[in-house]
């Protein structure tokens, strides 16, 4: 039998969620404690005296119907909660029932980075009953300018643990759960299913597709935010009758090369702060039922221009493979879906790109070898092909800046530079004492390599360096195409130089 199992399963899941929701509301109306405790235990707990500050259970398990001398609107909040959340409880458009729904609600935050930091803090502060945080990375010093939930003292700690610590410090009355592994196809649906709302605070395309698919399969609304440079985006997926999912908008993944990452492109710290804060806001709206969620709308934020702009999005696509009428990505099939193949990139995010192997290793040199050669070859020309922002931080003395992005524009200048160095060497050679033997030997080798049969002056040595040794290979390949065949690049780039030659060279 192959009736659409995905559709049935989804419908079942939806009804279960609906049932749980109704049950919770019914419980609240009856004044019974919310949560999964069996009715007998709940009734027993309800007869106990209020636990005078000794509530050792989770926040959601506190007995709310204990004997007391005041009446409310059967909201289930206790005196402490009312005091803590009073400013939003007395808010006309929010109120005690909205707060009660928030306190009964749960949110899963995927990623404790730039977006997840403010999202987690605000959701914890607002009183969301249970906050789950997924992240497999550890805190690095270069994270903290934007990942403000972490501290200098938590560098090296698991991000999820560091974030949970900060949330608990802010609000000890809520439950904070940590998941110290990456979200994977194997664990995504069962993890997402444990929460009411999901916040996508991840930083890479494969994870974004995975989260969206898991939310479709589990029937959960998804608050999606992204930030890079000075730009941000925010929307709500998989919501309501006609809300689209990520795949409805982007059925085909962009090429890996078109995905800018914070580690390469940079990000102004406040920008993910703005977007992550707005994600918390959308999650609060979804849980409390207050306001209009940003479904079928995309908020586009241009922080440089100070412009917030919301645009209208398409409805759910009936043909969508994740949320359409007959989805092929279901709870059953999702665990075996290959997200790396679909997006052409691994879910690794702030990590360095894979080392490229374009130029054979034996034709490249180590930083130590570069240091030795630069010391012994006064005519050598060193090209640095990193972007200007990085070159301006720090570069080797005398390095010529020829960014790879517009490399061809610099080829003429490189040739002029080589000619000038060669002419300078020739003039110096006539006037000054003969060079050291070693240098002479190298110069001879160089002459042979250059095949100076055309009678031109020998080419001065040419070296190429970049951040990590990938773009430098591409630059050498390009130079070879253009007939400058003697260029040699440095394995590992300036990062390796900093590790192996000069520890005082700044890393970024």
């Amino acid at each position, binding site marked *: 039998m192959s009736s659409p199992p995905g559709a049935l399963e989804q419908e079942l899941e939806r009804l279960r969620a609906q049932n749980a929701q109704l049950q919770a509301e019914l419980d609240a109306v009856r004044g019974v404690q919310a949560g999964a405790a069996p009715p007998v235990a709940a009734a027993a707990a309800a007869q106990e005296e209020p636990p005078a500050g000794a509530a050792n259970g989770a926040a959601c398990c506190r007995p709310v119907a204990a004997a007391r001398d005041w009446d409310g609107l059967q909201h289930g909040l206790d005196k402490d909660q009312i005091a803590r959340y009073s400013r939003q409880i007395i808010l006309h458009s929010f109120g005690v029932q909205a707060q009660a729904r928030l306190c009964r609600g749960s949110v899963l935050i995927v990623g404790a980075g730039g977006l997840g930091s403010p999202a987690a803090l605000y959701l914890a502060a607002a009183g969301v009953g249970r906050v789950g945080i997924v992240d497999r990375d550890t805190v690095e010093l270069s994270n903290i300018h934007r990942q403000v939930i972490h501290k200098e003292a938590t560098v090296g700690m698991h991000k999820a643990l560091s974030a949970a610590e900060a949330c608990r410090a802010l609000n000890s009355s809520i439950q904070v759960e940590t998941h110290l592994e990456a979200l994977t196809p194997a664990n995504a649906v069962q993890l997402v299913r444990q929460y009411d709302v999901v916040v996508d605070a991840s*930083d890479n395309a494969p994870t*974004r597709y995975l989260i969206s698919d898991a939310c479709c399969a589990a029937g959960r609304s998804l608050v999606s935010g992204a930030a890079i440079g000075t730009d941000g985006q925010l929307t709500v997926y998989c919501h309501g009758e006609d809300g689209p999912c990520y795949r409805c908008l982007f059925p085909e993944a962009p090429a890996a090369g078109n*995905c800018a990452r914070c580690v390469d492109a940079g990000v102004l710290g406040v920008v*993910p702060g703005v977007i992550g804060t707005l994600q918390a806001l959308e999650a609060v709206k979804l849980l409390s039922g207050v306001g209009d969620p940003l479904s079928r709308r*995309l908020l586009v934020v*241009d922080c440089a221009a100070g412009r917030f702009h919301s645009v209208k999005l398409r409805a759910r696509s009936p043909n969508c493979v994740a949320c359409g009428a007959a989805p092929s990505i279901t709870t059953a099939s999702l665990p075996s879906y290959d997200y790396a193949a679909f997006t052409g990139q691994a879910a690794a995010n702030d990590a360095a790109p894979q080392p490229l192997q374009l130029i054979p290793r034996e034709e490249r040199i180590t930083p130590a070898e570069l240091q030795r050669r630069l010391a012994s070859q006064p005519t050598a020309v060193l090209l640095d092909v990193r972007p200007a922002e990085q070159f301006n931080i720090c570069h080797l003395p005398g390095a010529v800046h020829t960014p790879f992005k517009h490399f061809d524009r610099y080829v003429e200048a490189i040739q002029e530079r080589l000619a000038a160095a060669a002419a300078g060497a020739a003039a110096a050679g006539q006037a000054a004492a003969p060079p050291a033997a070693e240098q002479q030997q190298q110069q001879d080798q160089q002459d042979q390599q250059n095949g100076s049969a055309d009678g031109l002056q020998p080419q001065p040595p040419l070296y190429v360096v970049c951040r990590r040794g990938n773009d430098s290979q591409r630059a050498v390949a390009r130079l070879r195409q253009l007939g400058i065949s003697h260029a040699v690049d440095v394995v590992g780039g300036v990062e390796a130089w900093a590790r192996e030659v000069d520890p005082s060279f700044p890393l970024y």
Partner: protein
Amino acid sequence: MELLFGNQKTVEADIPVSNGGQLTVAEAMAWARDNLLTERPELFMKGSSVRPGVLVLVNDTDWELCGELEAEVAEGDRVTFISTLHGG
């Protein structure tokens, strides 16, 4: 996206209409590629449509709601290209 268009975020253009008919988004895109794009056309278009990961808007509305490539644009209309962000 503006990096592909000489760092300009907004461009006002008079796009010539061929054979007196209605201009479509497809034609406007091709014109922008040929006349405004300053580098790497593969980051803007794929075939005759936009590359994956780019959202096209006509007057702030998803072009999917207006007929996609066939959506008609006229004097004063605004076509916007937004590339989806992944960072966080």
